[in-house]
């Protein structure tokens, strides 16, 4: 694919997993976008940070646990995962509570990163 066809796609996740389907179906778009060799960033803000919480056990709600997919993203060359510091702090979470390595940014840095994107999809 030529350089002209590579755009910066950012996926903004602001919703918790399982209560609604958005997080799971967002992940499906992320994987397809990577297959198109696009420049992909994932952002987790507000309740979206709960998608990355360690220790998810979904047997009791008879729903597929899709959190292991986040660990597999590296295999799809998706390495840009960003979490907003304020969202973590407000929920009493630290990076240690997350199941993948992420870059923690403050609100302003996150906003600046958004300004650099070509396409932003929010789920």
């Amino acid at each position, binding site marked *: 694919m030529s350089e002209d066809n590579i755009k910066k796609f950012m996926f903004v996740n*602001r919703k918790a997993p399982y209560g609604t389907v958005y997080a799971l179906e967002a992940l499906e778009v992320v994987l397809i976008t990577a297959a198109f060799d696009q420049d992909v960033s994932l952002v987790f803000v*507000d309740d979206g940070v709960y998608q990355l919480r360690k220790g998810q056990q979904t047997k009791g709600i008879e729903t597929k646990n899709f959190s292991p997919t986040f660990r597999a993203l590296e295999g799809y060359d998706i390495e840009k995962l960003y979490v907003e510091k304020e969202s973590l702090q407000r929920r009493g979470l630290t990076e240690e509570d997350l199941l993948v390595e992420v870059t923690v940014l403050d609100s*302003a840095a996150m*906003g600046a990163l*958004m*300004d650099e994107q070509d*396409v*932003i999809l929010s789920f």
Partner: protein
Amino acid sequence: MLHIINKSPFGHETLATCFRMAQGGDVLLIEDAVYAATPGTALESLIKAALERFNIHVLQPDLDARGVGAEIIEGVHAVDYGGFVDLVTRNATSQSWL
């Protein structure tokens, strides 16, 4: 860039999160977010403060539908769907804060 908000600021964090992270530009209030543009609410000072950093627009048909179209906070711009389209084309990117 253009930030599109569609949630009431009373029931959701969406607008607050946008104001916290976004670095300026245009904000468009549509659907249930239009209540943020109405004067006399507890959030009016928040909107007025945000007007120093953002150009805030509100979709008039959504205001009218909800019975709050008569008056909006000074400095907020009312637009129709054509104005919505212009905001999208004028900005290189838009984000719907869902």
